[in-house]
C-alpha cells in the first residue's frame, strides 16, 4: 500500500525464505568471508572472459538460494536480476541458463534493493508466489567497461572505490519462515553536479540522504526504530559526507547504527580498496549474506538497507556530464 509520498508498506509481509552470496578472491580476504556461501579464488572462475565469470556468479547465487529453500527452479515464478555490464548481459545470460521467467533490471548499484522492492510488490499483489532477486558485479568486468584495463597502472585517489566481485540472491515468498520485507521507499534521481567517477561516494551521498528523509517522513518513523541502517556503497568518503548531511538536515541517526556495506565488506588495510567497496554486488552480498545471517541468528531485528546507485555511463562521463544518483530503501524485519 502506498504510504506517504513514495513508500510502499507491504501488509502481507513477503518473506525472504532463502538467500545466497557468492564472492571472489578479494571478498574472501575480507571480514565478511564467513557469510558467503561460495568463495572463488580465481577472478575468472575458470571461464574465458570476465563477463562469463560474472554470469557464473549469478547462476551460482540463484542456484544456491533455490537449493537452500529446498525448492526446484520450476517453483519460482519470476527472476528479477541486474548487473552493471552493458545491456545487462550477465543477467540475461544467467536467466537463459535458469529458464525462469525473467525481468531484467538496471539501477546501477541500487539494483539489489530495486529488485527486492519489486519482488516484494509481486508477492504482495499476489502476481507471484515465489520471486527470485539476483544482482552481481565483477571487479575486472566493471573496470574494463567503466574505467581502464585492469592491469593499467594509474594512480587512484583515496576517494576511489573497489568494485566488489560477487553476486547476491534472495528468494522472496508469500509464506514461510525468515526475515520479512515490510516497507520500501523508492528514491528520486538526485544530481548535485559532481562528475568525478573516482569519487562516487560524494556523488551518491545526497541520494541516500534524500531517500532516508523520505522514508522516515512517509512512515512517520524515528531512526531509532531500526537496529541498523546501512547504505549501499558510499565507502568511507561518502559515508562521512552522508552522516554529516543527515545531521545538517536535522535527521539524527545514531552513529553506531548507521553503517555502509562498502566499508563493512573489506578490511581497512586491504590494498587498492581505498575508500571501500562498490558495485551492485557490494550491497547485495552484504545484505543477502551478512545482514540476513545476523537477523536469522537474532542479532538484528529490524534493518533498513539503502542501496545507492550512480547512474553514469562511460560515455556520459566522457561527454562531461555529471553523475546522477539514486537510492532505494528497503526495511527488513524479523
Amino acid at each position, binding site marked *: 500500500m502506498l504510504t506517504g509520498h513514495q513508500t510502499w508498506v507491504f501488509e502481507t509481509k513477503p518473506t525472504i525464505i532463502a538467500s545466497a552470496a557468492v564472492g571472489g578472491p578479494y571478498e574472501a580476504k575480507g571480514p565478511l568471508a564467513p557469510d558467503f556461501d561460495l568463495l572463488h579464488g580465481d577472478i575468472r572462475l575458470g571461464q574465458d572472459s570476465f563477463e562469463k565469470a560474472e554470469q557464473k556468479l549469478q547462476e551460482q547465487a540463484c542456484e544456491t538460494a533455490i537449493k537452500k529453500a529446498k525448492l526446484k527452479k520450476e517453483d519460482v515464478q519470476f527472476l528479477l536480476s541486474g548487473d552493471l555490464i552493458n545491456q545487462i548481459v550477465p543477467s540475461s545470460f544467467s536467466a537463459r541458463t535458469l529458464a525462469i521467467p525473467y525481468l531484467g533490471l538496471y539501477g546501477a548499484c541500487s539494483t539489489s534493493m530495486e529488485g527486492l522492492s519489486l519482488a516484494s510488490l509481486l508477492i504482495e499483489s499476489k502476481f507471484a508466489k515465489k520471486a527470485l532477486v539476483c544482482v552481481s558485479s565483477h571487479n575486472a568486468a566493471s573496470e574494463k567497461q567503466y574505467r*581502464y584495463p*585492469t*592491469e593499467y597502472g594509474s*594512480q*587512484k*585517489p*583515496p576517494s576511489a572505490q573497489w568494485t566488489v566481485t560477487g553476486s547476491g540472491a534472495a528468494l522472496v515468498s508469500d509464506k514461510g519462515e525468515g526475515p520479512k520485507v515490510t516497507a520500501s521507499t523508492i528514491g528520486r534521481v538526485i544530481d548535485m553536479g559532481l562528475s568525478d567517477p573516482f569519487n562516487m561516494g560524494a556523488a551518491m551521498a*545526497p541520494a541516500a540522504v534524500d531517500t532516508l528523509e523520505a522514508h522516515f517522513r512517509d512512515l512517520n518513523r524515528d531512526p531509532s526504530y531500526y537496529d541498523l541502517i546501512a547504505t549501499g556503497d558510499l565507502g568511507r568518503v561518502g559515508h562521512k*559526507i552522508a552522516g554529516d548531511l543527515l545531521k545538517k538536515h536535522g535527521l539524527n541517526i545514531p552513529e553506531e547504527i548507521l553503517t555502509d556495506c562498502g566499508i563493512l565488506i573489506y578490511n581497512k588495510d586491504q590494498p587498492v580498496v581505498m575508500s571501500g567497496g562498490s558495485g551492485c554486488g557490494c550491497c547485495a552480498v552484504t545484505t543477502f549474506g551478512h545482514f540476513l545471517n545476523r537477523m536469522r541468528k537474532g542479532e538484528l531485528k529490524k534493518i533498513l538497507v539503502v542501496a545507492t546507485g550512480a547512474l553514469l555511463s562511460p560515455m556520459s562521463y566522457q561527454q562531461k556530464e555529471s553523475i546522477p544518483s539514486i537510492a532505494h530503501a528497503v526495511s527488513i524485519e524479523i
Partner: protein
Amino acid sequence: MSIKKKKELSPTQQEYQQFAQEREPKRPIVLNCIKAFIVGGLICTFGQVLQMFFIKYFHFSKESAGNPAMAVIIIITVILTGFGVFDHIAQFAGAGTVVPITGFANTIASAAIEHRSEGYVLGVGGNMFKLAGPVIVYGVFSAFVVSLVVVSLRALGVM
C-alpha cells in the same frame, strides 16, 4: 572545474559541492611527487646503466644505445603487466612509472590483455591503442607543428 561550468550549477549544488569537498581526503600531492621522483629516477638510472652496458659490451654508439635500452625496459614492463604486478607498482609510484617509457608500454600491454576475450582482430588489434592512441596522435601532431615553426624560422633567417 571551469568557472563557466560552475556558474551553471544551482546554489544548492554549489553548496553541496563545497560541503562534500571539505570532507573528502585530499590526494597527498607532495608525498606522491616524492614517490614519483624516486621511482622515476630509479627507472631512468636503470635505463642509463643499460645504455652504458650496450655501449661497452655491444659497441653501440652513444646515440643508438638508447634504443636497445628502451626495448629492455619495455619488455620488463610488459612482463610485469602480464603478471599483474605493474598496476600495484604504479599505484605507489604514480607519475614515476607513467612518464618514462614504462607508462606507454603498460597502456598497450594492459589493453591488449584486457580485450583478448574479444578476439585477436577486433579485440586485441582494435583496442591495443585505446589508451596509447591519443599519445601517438597528439605526439605526432605537435612534432609536426614544431617542425613547421622551425622550418619557417629558418627560412626567415632567424635561426
